[in-house]
């Protein structure tokens, strides 16, 4: 008797011990159907009724006090709620869920029912641990997560606005539409021409932004403060596909060259890909960077052939890639099962002839004479124009087409036609949709999209619904509104998401805490030192291959499972340490100094400093859309509480600690 009694006492204790774990709302498990904490008497009861076939109010939600969305949430999770794996969510599963919520574990949890794949409690517990269907996100968290994907970082005002609108697909779609119609602050060109922000001529600092510094300042100003956040984020993604750089480059200090290129990516972010491709090709900054500026036609007398640089990289990096792709981004195979290259060296030789004869344009354009081709000047602001004397007239064969040889002296229109024909051919290659779509998904949402996700976006690229190919608005909307991007269950998918790149982490902090320089000058000139800063700086990629390749995976577990994690290419012992040091310093002291100090505003948190739990909850929603694990929250809470309210400067130090630990938590670093 005594023995039995102590057993039930042990059970009771286990139940009591299990309960505190349920009180943290952010804990992934178990089984909440709304934003509240899961319990056997609400969610458990609801699911039991659901399993027994009841639907709708009041049959389902009578006395459960769950949100009205609970039924839809339940319906979307039936596959995961099939705990015993017999292929259907039934009352056996609901019974296990109820018992689990009551704290039963081990043999008292119970095993699977008829035809179960998971018969034992141990297997069921392991399944729950792996596939734990978390509580539904709150509206704030849904909004913050969306903004993390679509902007340079959520702010409370943006979150609140989306919550007001419902923080659902309708709200997000409306936000996207509004963003498509939101203009930039101004052209980057104007900042650089003025050598400072609007009003610099009359402020105390003056217009002193020389050389490339001006471009860096206007880049950050617009990324951080631009009302056109979606454009800013997408333009930055495009800058990582169509890479120009000031490193190992013929355009290293020319602020106007890079400002013009930034403007070009911003202008085309919501345009058509065909125009984007041509604007990239004709941009003088790209022309210098990939050396097709003043690229000359072949010359049999000296044995000269056209420079192949742009021809190769426009195919490999900017449009179709190396391998023939299916619409879902997977590689096509030949009859023997091998990957199929999209082009060979002869295609490059043929296409290189197209990119000859390009040099300065301007407004008005210089006369397209041979002298002007070789020696004339022009402006970084305008696309390169064709100079017919420099353009190859021989037959150009590539990607299955031939532009016929032209005889005699050709006109500028003929040279333009060569280029148009080539760009049309590239644009219409079936690879472009999946190739570009997958890269945009990787930049905004996840490193390893499912083939179906890639296909859905690529189909929008191929046809926006109005028989238009290359509509970037349709593509961007498809990337962000795809079920895979929005599905809350993806939060529990162990391979979903992406490592936030270093500059986006820093950007998220500046936006979250309204860290702005009083002078308006973002003197963030160089963040690339991997030991002292972030190991990444806009417009300073080491080569046209960007900071990381889209398919990169770190050797080891990720590479072995053939997944990708591009941002890990610049992630190692040095950069993780440097990021830690950099953020710990910036969070406390801001970035830069004097008038230009980028200083955070922590008022919202200083007001809450006696209530660490509330402070953590707020930061969790803002920076990690509620994904900090219970354990992480506890670690942060303990650290905050260790700073006693009697200590020197305890208020500020508690805030620094909370912000820093949140931004160093893996749940922040890996965007899901």
């Amino acid at each position, binding site marked *: 008797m005594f023995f039995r009694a102590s057993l039930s006492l042990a059970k009771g204790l286990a139940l009591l011990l299990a309960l505190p774990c349920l009180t943290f709302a952010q804990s992934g498990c178990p089984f909440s159907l709304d934003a509240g904490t899961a319990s056997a008497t609400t969610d458990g009861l609801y699911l039991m009724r659901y399993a027994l076939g009841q639907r709708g109010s009041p049959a389902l939600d009578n006395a459960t006090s769950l949100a009205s969305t609970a039924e839809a949430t339940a319906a979307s999770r039936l596959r995961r709620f099939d705990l015993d794996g017999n292929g259907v969510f039934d009352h056996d599963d609901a019974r296990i869920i109820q018992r689990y919520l009551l704290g039963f574990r081990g043999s008292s949890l119970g095993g699977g029912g008829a035809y179960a794949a998971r018969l034992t409690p141990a297997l069921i517990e392991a399944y729950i641990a792996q596939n734990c269907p978390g509580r539904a996100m709150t509206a704030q968290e849904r909004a913050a997560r969306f903004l993390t994907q679509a902007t340079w970082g959520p702010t409370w005002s943006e979150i609140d606005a989306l919550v007001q609108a419902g923080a659902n697909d309708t709200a997000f779609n409306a936000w996207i539409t509004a963003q498509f119609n939101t203009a930039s602050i101004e052209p980057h060109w104007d900042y650089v021409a003025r050598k400072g922000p609007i009003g610099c001529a009359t402020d105390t600092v003056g217009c002193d932004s020389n050389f490339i510094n001006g471009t860096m300042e206007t880049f950050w100003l617009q990324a951080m403060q631009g009302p056109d956040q979606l454009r800013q984020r997408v333009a930055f993604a495009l800058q990582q596909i169509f890479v120009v750089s000031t490193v*190992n480059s013929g355009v290293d200090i020319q602020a106007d060259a890079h400002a013009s290129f930034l403007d070009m990516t911003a202008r085309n972010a919501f345009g058509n890909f065909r125009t984007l491709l041509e604007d990239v090709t004709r941009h003088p900054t790209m022309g210098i960077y990939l*050396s097709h500026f003043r*690229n000359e036609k072949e010359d049999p007398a*000296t*044995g*000269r*052939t056209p*420079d*192949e*640089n742009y021809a*190769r990289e426009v195919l*490999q990096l900017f449009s179709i890639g190396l391998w023939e792709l299916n619409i879902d981004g997977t590689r096509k195979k030949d009859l023997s099962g091998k990957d199929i*290259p999209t082009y060979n*060296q002869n295609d*490059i030789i043929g296409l290189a002839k197209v990119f000859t004869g390009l040099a300065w344009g301007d407004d008005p354009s210089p006369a397209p004479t041979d002298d002007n081709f070789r020696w004339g000047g022009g402006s970084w602001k305008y696309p390169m124009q064709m100079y017919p004397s420099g353009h190859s007239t021989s037959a150009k064969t590539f990607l299955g087409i031939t532009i016929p040889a032209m005889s005699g002296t050709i006109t500028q229109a003929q040279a333009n036609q060569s280029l148009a024909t080539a760009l049309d051919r590239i644009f219409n290659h079936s690879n472009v949709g999946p190739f570009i779509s997958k890269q945009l998904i990787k930049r905004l949402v996840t*490193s390893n999209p499912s083939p179906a996700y890639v296909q859905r976006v690529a189909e929008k690229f191929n046809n926006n619904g109005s028989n238009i190919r290359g509509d970037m608005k349709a593509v961007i909307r498809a990337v962000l509104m795809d079920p895979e991007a929005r599905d809350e269950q993806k939060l529990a998918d*162990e*391979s979903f998401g992406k*490592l936030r790149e270093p500059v986006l982490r820093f950007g998220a902090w500046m936006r979250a805490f309204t860290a702005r320089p009083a002078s308006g000058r973002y003197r963030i000139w160089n963040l690339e030192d*991997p*030991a002292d800063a972030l190991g990444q700086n806009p417009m300073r990629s080491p080569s046209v291959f960007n900071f990381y390749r889209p398919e990169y995976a*770190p*050797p*080891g*577990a*990720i*590479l*072995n*499972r053939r*997944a990708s*994690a591009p941002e*890990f*290419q*610049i*992630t*190692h*012992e*040095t950069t*993780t*340490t440097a990021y*830690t*040091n950099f953020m*710990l310093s910036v969070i*406390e002291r801001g970035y830069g100094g004097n008038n230009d100090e980028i200083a955070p505003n922590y008022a919202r948190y200083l007001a809450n400093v006696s209530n660490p739990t509330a402070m953590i909850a707020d930061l969790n929603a803002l920076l990690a859309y509620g994904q900090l694990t219970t354990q*992480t929250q506890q*670690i942060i809470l*303990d*650290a905050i509480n260790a*700073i006693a309210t009697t*200590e020197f400067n305890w208020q500020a*130090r508690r805030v*620094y*600690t909370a912000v*820093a*630990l949140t931004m160093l*938590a*893996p*749940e922040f*670093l*890996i965007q899901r």
Partner: protein
Amino acid sequence: MAYVSRHAARRRFLQQFGSLSALAGTPFAANLATIGAASAQAGSDYKALVCVFLFGGNDHANLIVPRTGQAYTDYMNARPTLAISQASLRSISPTGYTGAPLGLHPAMANMQSMIASGRAAVLANLGTLTNPITLAQWNGGDSLVEVPAQLFSHSDQQAQWQTGLPDRSSPTGWLGRLGDVTAPLYNPNSGVSICMSIGGNNMIQAGEDTIQYQITPQGAIAVNALTLGNGGLYGSTAGAQALRRLLTDSRAGMMEREWSKIGKRAVDTENIVTTSLANAPAVTTVFPATSIGRQLQMVARMISARTNLSQRRQVFFVQQGGYDFHDDLVADQNARLGELDAALGAFNAAMNTLNVSSSVTTFTASEFGRALRHNGRGSDHGWGGHQFVFGGAVQGNRIYGSFPTIAFNTPTDAGNGRLIPTTSVDEFGVTLARWFGVTDTNALSTILPNRLRFPNGANGLGFV
């Protein structure tokens, strides 16, 4: 504590020496003794390999040039806008080389003197190959002879040079696999990976068990808030403990786990490296204040700290970018090679000063050579190219492999003077692996699985 867990190392070892499965159950050390590796454990010798990767594809035709007679004329005619003047070439006279006299690029004064003194050698027309291939096979598109996939692409040729497996995708590189084989034998007590990079993440040092360790040109950097005496996180030691947990605790989730693994390595290794460097003999040689100079200076310091690091074998990776000479080849290559040569010269001097010159072998690598054909101001992507290897162990002032004829339509011309390589990376790597102490044929084939497809894949090229 071994960097690679002993269990993992042993498993790897037994996989590589699979024929020894009959010995399973005998002590690990006895296994080693049986195959003659006991000397590795008992010995005290030291060796290091230094890979200097030149990103972008170094131009070979202006690196080593036929400097007299018709051969120079052919070179000049082939690339009139790029040719280096005859007078400025730095003469070299390799032993046993009977072709047209050769000159080195004018920016490479230190390399010239290292070659002349027998300390440096040239690897001629080296490149990525899946099989030996002739011009006829190349032109005929002989489907029986595979060529590396996506020839002439930077990213693919970089990966293939580094994995040593141009016929397949590989999660490891040949220096990483060399580390897998040698680290358990030579560095059993080291807390730092045998493969160390000052040049960023790379493929060549990725092993099955070996995880490359990144260090900065200034050494290992510490998380300030975790450093004793810094007062913790914003003045709180409890905060520092929290920070340490967030950085290093193992996590669920594929990428979270990877991040935490890196964080843990960073925190665990930094103190070992910092202490080892602080207590090592100073490197007094003055290095140039260039990126490549600073990287090689750090290599020298880590070599000086080898005993403190418990490392009898070290593999380093450094890199220099900017070799993609489509444009302004003459000026840009002169600048890049000038920086490189000054840094290599300083490194060679430092090895002499540290008395390890015969223990350290340094080599250059680059994803491809460039076309002989000019495009006006530069030249385009090629295939084979020349590399240097130097150190006290090198049988120098020689050319290894076959120096190509610098002209079009030669037996090594894949088109526009892109060289069909005549020596494979496999043969090159085998030579270095054997010098490094790997003699077992199974182990060599683990490091370079395709090696026996090539004439010198069994025993190497003999330059060290």
